[in-house]
């Protein structure tokens, strides 16, 4: 009996380490990648050309998102599962587009902060040409992705953030999406930035 329990304990410990290791890999990848991408972003801004964060990446940073709390996230060009593991992804919009800039991210890593957002709060996006765009959150919605198609307004003055909902759901792959819409802020913060410098 004791021997069986000892064996069970060993099994459980092994499984525990395996699960924790796997989960740490997912979270660690999300955290570490952003630091690597930060470097690629600086190069992008300096050279004005897309820059892969590491040579075998199938994606590259296209924007930098600043949260109301001052946290920054680097947005990648792609919303494939591979890209989203490393950072939020661009779904539509951006330079030369007449569509709303639409970004998607994982609810349990980069876009976990969406849960804390409220209407009226500011969001800032820096695009690859160096321009800063300031937005103000106007609306938060929960949408069932199985019943409603994704609509992207033909309006480049909007910013849309998409993540999975609910935030504390146990399993991935659910149908609900949390959609935050922000509109271009009227104040000219670029000038403020310049005076600060």
């Amino acid at each position, binding site marked *: 009996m*004791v021997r069986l*329990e000892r064996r069970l304990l060993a099994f459980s410990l092994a499984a*525990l380490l395996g699960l*924790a290791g796997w989960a740490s890999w997912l979270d660690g990848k999300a955290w570490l990648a952003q630091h690597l991408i930060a470097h690629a972003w600086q190069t992008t801004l300096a050279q004005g050309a897309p820059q892969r964060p590491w040579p075998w990446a199938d994606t590259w940073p296209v924007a930098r998102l600043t949260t109301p709390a001052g946290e920054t996230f680097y947005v990648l060009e792609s*919303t494939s599962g591979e890209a989203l593991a490393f950072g939020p992804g661009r779904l*539509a919009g951006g330079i030369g587009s007449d569509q709303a800039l639409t970004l998607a991210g994982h609810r*349990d890593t980069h876009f976990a902060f969406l849960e804390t957002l409220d209407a009226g709060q500011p969001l800032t996006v820096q695009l690859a040409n160096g321009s800063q765009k300031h937005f103000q959150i106007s609306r938060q919605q929960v949408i069932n992705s199985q019943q409603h198609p994704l609509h992207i307004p033909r309006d480049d003055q909007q910013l849309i953030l998409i993540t999975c909902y609910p935030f504390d759901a146990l*399993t991935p792959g659910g149908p609900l999406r949390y959609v935050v819409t922000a509109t271009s802020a009227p104040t000219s913060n670029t000038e403020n930035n310049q005076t600060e410098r």
Partner: protein
Amino acid sequence: MKITLFFSLLLLTFTAQANGQRWQDEAATGALLLADGQGQIQPATLLDTDAHITVSGPVAEVTLTQRFHNSSQQFREGRYLFPLPENAAVDGMVLTIGDRRIVGRIDRKAEAEKTYRQARASGKKASLVSQQRPNLFTTAVANIAPGETVQVELHYQQTLNVDGHRFQLRLPLTLTPRFTPPTEAPHTLDSLLRNTVAAPGGTADAGTASIHIDLDAGARLATLGSPSHAIRYQRHGRRYTITPKAGAIAMDRDLLLNWELEDTGEPLVASFHENIDGEHYALLMVVPPEAGQSTTLPRETLFIIDSSGSMGGAPMRQAKASLQLALQRLKPGDRFNITDFDSQHTLLFETPATVSDNSRQQAQQFVAGLQASGGTHMLPALSATLSQPASDGYLRQVIFITDGAVGNEHGIFQALHQQLGEARLFTVGIGSAPNSHFMTRAAQFGRGSFTYINDQNQVQQGMDTLFRRLESPLMRNLQVQLPNGIVAERWPQKLPDLYAGEPLLVAMKLSAPTEHITVSGYNTRHWQQPVTLPTDSNHPGTASLWARRKIADLMDRITLGAAETDIAPLVTDVALRHQLVSRYTSFIAVEETVSRPAHEPLLHDTVRNQAPHGTQRAAAWPSTATPAPLLWRLAGVLLIVCLLLWLHQRRANHGTA
């Protein structure tokens, strides 16, 4: 009790792993765009497609009619992408709203867009057709009143795919989403149209298509049939009337129609003529006989196979089957190599290897292990393949198997021009919607040919055809002689060799009408044939074909380094005169009366393209969660289990002590 808990936890862990895998698979297909709107869900815009096709010899004239119905309560704007076939040119458009008709006109692109925007802003109805890529056209219909139906009627002409005496008409009815690598900047296209490259997630399904074909092949037919759909036909002398058996067909695969001319054993020269405002155009079609000569030159065959993500599903199976078949047909003593590419590329052998049982077996294993994933980084793969050291005395033939879902076409053409040298390039298009414009042009650059395979059953026939073509040219030094005093602006300017299975089209604009033309060439001896041009009859499409050849040639000069500012006015001039859509010209049709009250908002609605038959459908919503929270919680539960077991053991140990 505890044991049960433990095993159920183990089970949960495995389920979580399976879910994670499934989620990743789905996310890999979900990378593409897009639906428009104001964030609100609107009822579907219905779409109906009707194609009427008239075929004369190597040219088809198509009238495509599409109906948009605004079933919502608001004024709306619809936007749809035309998947036009390769070698097609738009030459007319009619917009019908209710019982009013508006005939479109062609204009310089910037002016057409300005007119469209003005019309849209002032509440007028407008429809714009522009060339985004050579075979992608979009139409946007603004200001559709609630409950109203708007019909866009588009006329285009097309040169057909020809193989020996066999002709193929292809009507593309769906799209492959395209991938543009970041390092080579995509060509600057107007942002108004950029967002409609692929639109898999709109509100409305693209509806069914009804198709009617009138066929006059110019000679007696040996066979007639369709590999994609069941058809029915009626014959009236030399003319055939053809419709799909099912009536209206789903828009999930291209329609193919094949027919074959009777082979008399002699080169056949068919001629066509068109007179437009006193300008005379002639088209010659030289069809080689089927029996060819085989080459004695040893060959070096370099295969390039695309195993990127867009090849996933049926296309990858077809590509692998094609390559396996090609490997079987290699002759002992010849040389070969295989390059496989997606985001990276791999060469099977360091340098081309001699064909032997051993090397063939290695190649077969290599091909069997190929899997579709990753991006389409074609350029480095092409360069690596072409830069392999040439083997003296061997004729180098490059066979490129891909769906052509790539955006940096100019870069690839430039690489071909610089690196191909004396080698021939043969492209094999795979899947239900390959980028055949790109592959046809690439094969022209490489003096080879383009083979299209869209079904597992066509692999054998397609590769047979290709290998017959790899044999030496049937006729060299081809020349077209005109009577004294008559000159022609001719495309192609330099006549290529005549290959087995590949009829040669020569389009000419004549300085004066003439009936007497002589075509000559050299195979083992001098060959020549007099041709009588039917100057008293008109073959619609002849002049347009000439104009398109001229524009294609001019555009190729840009690829080869000519300044676009020099070429653009020349292209614009030809395009305006022949009513053709090009990179610099668009069709525009504007209604005179205002139909939208100024206070009513304009909502957007994108009509969805159906995903190509046989590939996975891209989801519009991204997957935005990882299994990490689940894993952490499972780990937490396991931690408690471990603690409990450990405590229990300690207590048991104490008890025995």
